[in-house]
């Protein structure tokens, strides 16, 4: 099967407008007869469900949480990008497009990214109209901050809770439609498989997580908006329930899985403290606006700090190695995430890690606090302010900007980050890879769409900060509602899809067979036992740096863990009640397959690009020595995998990437 990206003809600036002008529409009276299922209610799913319902479609929305408002988009902290150029610093649609393609290390589809940049400004307008309380300056206009990998300030934010406020905006739009009866909301429901009729996606099988009841739901199209698969690492910044089951199930039913090896390891997370750790907590990248990252220059200081003989504040400026500023003078602490993460790993691997595990670096706000303090002293006409006074004034500014993050850090680590530098270390955060979709956001299965983090489309091999929220809302508010209409215009005479058909019978049986297996298997080990083992293999061998030997070992080890899982997993309780272990068992079973495909994809891609770093592919000399080396001759394509049974047998399809509007260059942030 040849992959057709369906990118419209014409110049990149006009593609989306021309496309919208020429697609088929469904008239308002006919929309009332068309049903759409949306699985997942984060920014992408929530905004899509609300908008489709506003348009008049009958929407059925599904969330595993008890409310759409709890989807993990809520945890996004820093902000959302938009090419508004409110700061007059030269921003434009083209620049946002360019930064996103470059930041993604030239592994994304140009047309999709341009469209994303084009609709970004509308997102801010829409959210403000909904009452999202973005940060403002004293003139009452919207404030911006800067994020990694760019040279302009285009990030809009609501304290350190931007994801929360944007999700609550989408949730409020959903609530309005739920009240009107246009969205039927299924909370505490989990999609367990997709149902195809005559090759088209026509419904899902879901489990009511309170009663355990298996339900059939039909629709004319199915939208998957279930987020990323970062929990394949067990420890990540994802929510505990974040899972890849919907994505993996549609993959097994014919949707190609693209670039699973593109995973973002976020540079600023709170380091792990012990084996009992259940998840990792992110500290927003926005902190890198004001924080400086360092480790001690000398090994004896490292040892003294680890043994408690010295404190980080004892070290003079000369004794500190601000390694990002040293290696990347142009971008400094604001290099993209993949670069910052690898630089931290490099220092820690060299032995300079500053905590007991040797896996932590400092993020220091002293300079920023002093800078703001002096500024404030001037503003308030305080002459000869003491150092303490300056620090106090500066601290107030930092508190206003990042107060909730500092509080969160203090609660977890039990140290005051205003007084002593934070300790941070990279952690799995976001997955750029995902279900392959065409320009319409449709998967390789007709009528089956995939939006938000769950698809692969816009971030290439690395996502820039504040772009996940932008993509989720762009897909849900402004892209899918158009593209899905073009497909549904053929369904105006179809009528309701019946669920009492052999197709639904067959898929429901697959689902119940698997649940029965779990309930009847008399194994000896808990689900978490296997999940943790999978996570260790993924982190050690498919983590921040990868090589052929490790990846081959990882594939074999994951397969072995999977085989043991199916023999030894133990699930207590029964299937017809709330059963959290049963929920986890299904999710981990899918991660155990996805993890192997992930390693296979990483093995296949013998180049370093974005979040995917192959030790075999680095610059050997010159100014860029030791930096990641991309290989455009052999790897300028999207890897789309077709399911063929065992993950190791998956078949690779390539979508060649053409760059017509941006020149392919090796990234440099020096």
């Amino acid at each position, binding site marked *: 099967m040849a992959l057709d990206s369906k990118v419209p003809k014409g110049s990149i600036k006009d593609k989306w407008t021309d496309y919208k002008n020429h697609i088929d529409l469904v008239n308002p009276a006919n929309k009332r007869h068309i049903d759409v299922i949306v699985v997942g209610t984060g920014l992408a799913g929530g905004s899509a469900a609300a908008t489709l319902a506003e348009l008049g479609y009958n929407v059925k929305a599904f969330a595993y949480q008890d409310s759409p408002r709890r989807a993990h988009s809520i945890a996004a902290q820093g902000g959302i990008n938009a090419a508004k150029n409110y700061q007059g610093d030269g921003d434009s649609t083209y620049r946002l497009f360019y930064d996103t393609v470059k930041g993604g290390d030239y592994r994304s589809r140009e047309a999709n990214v341009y469209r994303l940049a084009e609709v970004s400004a509308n997102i801010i307008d829409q959210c403000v*109209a909904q009452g999202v309380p973005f*940060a403002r300056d004293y003139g*009452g206009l919207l404030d911006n901050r800067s994020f990694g990998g760019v040279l302009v300030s285009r990030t809009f934010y609501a304290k350190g809770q931007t994801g929360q*406020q944007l999700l609550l905006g989408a949730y409020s739009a959903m609530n309005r439609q739920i009240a009107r009866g246009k969205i039927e909301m299924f909370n505490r429901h989990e999609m367990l498989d997709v149902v195809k009729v005559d090759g088209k996606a026509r419904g899902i099988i879901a489990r009511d997580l309170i009663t355990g009841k298996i339900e059939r739901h039909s629709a004319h199209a199915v939208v998957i908006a279930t987020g990323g698969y970062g929990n394949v690492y067990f420890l990540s910044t994802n929510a505990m329930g974040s899972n890849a089951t919907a994505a993996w199930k549609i993959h097994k039913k014919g949707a190609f899985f693209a670039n699973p090896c593109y995973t973002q390891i976020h540079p600023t997370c709170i380091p792990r403290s012990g084996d*009992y750790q259940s998840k990792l907590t992110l500290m927003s990248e926005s902190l890198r606006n004001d924080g400086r990252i360092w480790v001690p220059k000398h090994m004896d200081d490292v040892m003294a700090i680890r043994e408690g003989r010295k404190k980080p504040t004892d070290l003079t400026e000369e004794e500190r190695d601000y390694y990002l500023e040293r290696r990347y003078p142009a971008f400094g602490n604001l290099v993209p995430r993949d670069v910052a993460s690898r630089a931290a790993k490099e220092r820690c691997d060299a032995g300079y890690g500053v905590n007991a595990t040797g896996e932590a670096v400092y993020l220091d706000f002293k300079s920023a606090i002093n800078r703001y303090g002096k500024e404030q002293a001037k503003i308030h006409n305080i002459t000869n302010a003491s150092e303490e006074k300056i620090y106090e004034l500066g601290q107030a500014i930092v508190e206003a900007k990042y107060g909730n993050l500092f509080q969160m850090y203090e609660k977890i680590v039990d140290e005051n980050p205003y007084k002593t530098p934070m300790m941070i270390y990279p952690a799995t955060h976001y997955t750029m890879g995902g279900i392959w979709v065409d320009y319409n956001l449709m998967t390789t299965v007709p009528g089956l769409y995939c939006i938000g983090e769950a698809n692969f489309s816009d971030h290439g091999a690395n996502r820039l900060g504040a772009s996940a929220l932008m993509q989720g809302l762009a897909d849900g508010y402004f892209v899918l509602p158009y593209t899905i209409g073009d497909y549904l215009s053929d369904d105006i005479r179809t009528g309701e899809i019946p669920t009492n058909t052999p197709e639904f019978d067959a898929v429901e049986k697959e689902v119940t067979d698997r649940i029965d297996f779990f309930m009847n298997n008399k194994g000896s080990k808990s689900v978490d036992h296997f999940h943790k083992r999978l996570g260790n293999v993924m982190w050690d061998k498919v983590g921040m740096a990868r090589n052929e030997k490790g990846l081959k070992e990882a594939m074999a080890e994951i397969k072995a863990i999977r085989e043991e899982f199916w023999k030894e997993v133990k699930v207590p309780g029964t299937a017809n009640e709330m059963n959290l272990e049963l929920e986890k068992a299904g999710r981990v079973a899918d991660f155990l397959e996805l993890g192997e495909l992930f390693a296979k994809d990483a093995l296949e891609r013998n180049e370093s690009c974005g979040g995917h770093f192959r030790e075999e592919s680095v610059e050997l000399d010159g100014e860029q020595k030791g930096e990641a080396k991309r290989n455009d001759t052999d790897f300028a394509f999207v890897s789309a995998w077709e399911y063929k049974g065992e993950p190791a047998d998956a078949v690779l399809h390539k979508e060649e990437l053409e760059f017509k509007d941006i020149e392919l260059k090796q990234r440099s942030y020096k």
Partner: protein
Amino acid sequence: MNLTLKIWRQKDASSKGQMVDYKVTDISEHMSFLEMMDVLNEQLVNSGDEPVAFDHDCREGICGMCSMYINGEAHGPDRGVTTCQLHMRMFKDGDTITIEPFRAAAFPVIKDLVVDRMAFERIQQAGGYISVNTSGNTQDANALPISKHAADEAMDAATCIGCGACVASCKNSSAMLFVGAKVSQYALLPQGQVEAVDRVQNMVAQMDLEGFGNCTNTGACEIECPKGISLENIARMNRELMKASLK
């Protein structure tokens, strides 16, 4: 540290529940409270017992899913945190910890420590929104300047995570802090003015219909709120309701 846990166990909504004692050993002070619960559950699964059902998801204090009543306080003894951010350093070796679900007539127990908070959903559906369709044609975001003070205050109200700690802490099981926060967010912003009258009336009517109690100004909700939502929001809601009744 070694601890005794007294935990509410209830098979489902229609079964009778009871407190059951458990012991956990070697708990690190650096663990979060829910990681301690994970240890207990791993122990229960390994010995063939059913693990304790509890709600949790993001484990970073923002999703509002976790909801335990620990030693008589919603989200436990620490201030300004949810249960997932509560750390075991707040307890000491040999302690007995009582863990119950959030209790309120409007929050029926689903299982063990999991409660049904759909009442909050229905209140939001009654008016917790601004009626604006997605079009791409809304006015430019900066066409409507909003004073920084109003925007910041609206943000403080909007920061509510909908966990229900206010209801669980209130002797009347009142939801007025939750509803007040949402009403306030929109009341403080110009975008919210058009529908202000209907919004406050509809949301308050739904709140009453759900069986939440009234506010008697004890202020427990403000103290236990993990996000520090202020009582002022209740006063503002009452003013909005009063204004609405005069229109």
